[in-house]
């Protein structure tokens, strides 16, 4: 499979598979609904009115296009590749998550759904979902692990201000995977009126595909902006991955440009060797969870194990199925960064560029810090700065031993 790929952009197949990965591993109750979402999405993406409406809100409400910024001081500091940031942290609500939420809520409206549910880890997807629900006046319930509620208090408050109900999830490790379990349980019980806005490029088909498609605006813009800035394509793209939607959004439009190399950064937590990490590709193996087959952190009995990362948004024991496939085909290079490396990167960026990155892209930045110095000065490197760090100041303070 790995050697005979003509295009990396044709997946998934008609049944939602990316090679071995993806699929629709859901309870029968959800099957007709998942098929309905697929039909509705296929109709929507062929409908110019849908795209026009989405473009309108992305421009006037989200604030797209987000800038492609040349980080001059960081580039000087690292002494190698020219480092550009795709500034998706400047979007309304502070992360790339809203690109997807806007697309999905317009789809939910087309489908006549009257209630929205979502899961959230760091709270960015929850905030983005609560935001579009406020905008379109739809009731919104967000499932969030109680561990995450504690470490992401500002985002919990924001969701409530936006009118969403935040339901704490105490089962399992009380983080993102458990929130996703409870969101699926809610959906099974309320299939008739409810639409589930999944926050990353994972879950049963067609979610990995449609979330990716809605995030591709990131890479599409980078292509245009880089042509304008440098007159050519970038050489290296870097992004962090939990579920992997921001990385796919940046990478996917470039997958068939063989000159562009891509690096995705998983969360190594306290270090892969400690077992306390969230690096499903580096430290996991293929399995089936949350509607798709992908790489998962699990034990020898097929029980899902707990992920660990300082970043709540990366604290998930799986990864989107398309990443699993891109990993096996070796089109994308997958590496990891530890909690400590992410914290160091966070501090460096604040000082050098006046930008507080979210702890999620701080993992990507940690890789940029390692890699850029080894590359020539005319090498164009783009990192997706997919979220802002305001939500993380309490976590960072605690990690630095500072009381606020």
């Amino acid at each position, binding site marked *: 499979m790995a050697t005979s790929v003509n295009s990396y952009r044709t997946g998934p197949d008609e049944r939602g598979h990316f090679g071995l990965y993806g699929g629709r591993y859901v309870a*029968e109750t959800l099957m007709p609904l998942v098929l309905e979402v697929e039909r509705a999405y296929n109709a929507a993406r062929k409908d110019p009115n849908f795209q026009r409406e989405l473009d309108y809100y992305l421009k006037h409400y989200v604030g797209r296009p987000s800038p492609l910024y040349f980080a001059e001081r960081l580039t000087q500091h690292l002494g190698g590749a020219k480092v550009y940031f795709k500034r998706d942290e400047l979007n309304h609500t502070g992360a790339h998550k809203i690109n997807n939420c806007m697309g999905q809520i317009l789809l939910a409206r087309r489908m006549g759904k009257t209630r929205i549910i979502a899961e959230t880890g760091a709270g960015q997807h929850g905030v983005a979902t609560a935001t579009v629900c406020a905008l379109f006046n739809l009731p919104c319930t967000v499932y969030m692990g109680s561990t995450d509620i504690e470490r992401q208090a500002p985002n919990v408050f924001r969701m409530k201000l936006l009118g969403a109900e935040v339901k704490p999830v105490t089962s399992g490790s009380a983080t993102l995977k458990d929130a996703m379990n409870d969101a699926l349980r809610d959906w099974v019980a309320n299939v008739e009126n409810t639409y589930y806005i999944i926050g990353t490029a994972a879950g049963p088909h067609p979610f990995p595909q449609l979330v990716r498609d809605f995030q591709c605006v990131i890479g599409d813009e980078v292509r245009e902006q880089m042509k304008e800035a440098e007159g050519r394509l970038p050489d290296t793209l870097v992004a962090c991955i939990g579920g992997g939607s921001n990385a796919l959004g940046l990478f996917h439009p470039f997958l068939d440009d063989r000159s562009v190399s891509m690096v995705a950064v998983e969360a190594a937590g306290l270090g892969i060797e400690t077992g306390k990490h969230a690096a499903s590709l580096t430290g996991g193996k293929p*399995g089936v969870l949350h509607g798709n087959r992908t790489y998962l952190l699990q034990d020898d*009995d097929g029980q899902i194990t707990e992920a660990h990362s300082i970043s709540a948004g990366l604290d998930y024991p799986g990864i989107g199925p398309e990443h699993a496939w891109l990993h096996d085909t070796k089109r994308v290079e997958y590496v990891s960064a530890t909690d400590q490396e992410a914290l160091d990167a966070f501090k460096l960026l604040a000082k050098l560029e006046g930008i507080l990155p979210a702890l999620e892209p701080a993992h990507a930045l940690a890789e940029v810090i390692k890699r850029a110095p080894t590359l020539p000065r005319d090498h164009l490197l783009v990192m997706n700065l997919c979220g802002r760090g305001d939500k993380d100041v309490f976590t960072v303070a605690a990690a630095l031993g500072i009381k606020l």
Partner: protein
Amino acid sequence: MSRIATRFTKLKQEGRAGLVTFTMAGDPDYATSLAIMRGLPKAGVDLIEIGVMFSDPMADGPAIQAGGLRAHKAGATVRRTLDMIAEFRRSGDNETPVVLMGYYNPIYIFGAEKFCAEAKKAGVDGLIVVDLPPEEDHELRPYAISNGLDIIRLATPTTDEARLPAVLDGASGFIYYVAVMGITGTKSAAIEQVQSSLARIRKSTDLPIAVGFGIKTPDQAAEIARVADAAVVGSALVEIIGSKGDTVRSAHRFVEVLANAVHSARKKAKAEA
């Protein structure tokens, strides 16, 4: 004829519905779980459903989630589950059908082919894999078929006319009708709705239909027994197993009451008419 087919034929001949119970393998521990299982046929259970623990049971409510956690803490694994079934068969019961119910990942990691072969060897008769819909079960079904295991398909209130043929294509053993839209052990269905759904499904298949989800009391079980070939009780029994005291005895007592209600339901209905 398989144990499942033999049992449903017998129920039909006797003109009564069957009682199916669900317990989680290894809940609250291996020995207690086996002791409960051994007493089920005598307490009146017609078909035994045994849950295979999974860390992320997305179709299950709090009761069965808790049962899974208890089993996990006590060391339950796929291997130990198969051991328990084998031990049950060795203690002399060769008639009562045993169906394993669980999620796909533990089976996938065990190896689908190896799992089917060893399940058959242990004395399992059928498999219900909640998150393996017809679209995906080609990776398990060939091995189930070659080992003579039934793949039991789920039909639900959302399984409409367009969807039903996909569910029935390749189904064997019996159809498990999920009475409610939702997870196990929460809301209960209106009997009229169950009745009309069953009538619809029966137009397309001769397979027996067991109804489960939300059946908690002997009265509810009896009501279902009047319209279905079997009634499945899970969460209510798992809750008893999770309570304090002599759980083996209280589980069997509860099952006896359920069995009486289910077995006499149609006679009573006739007498009332």
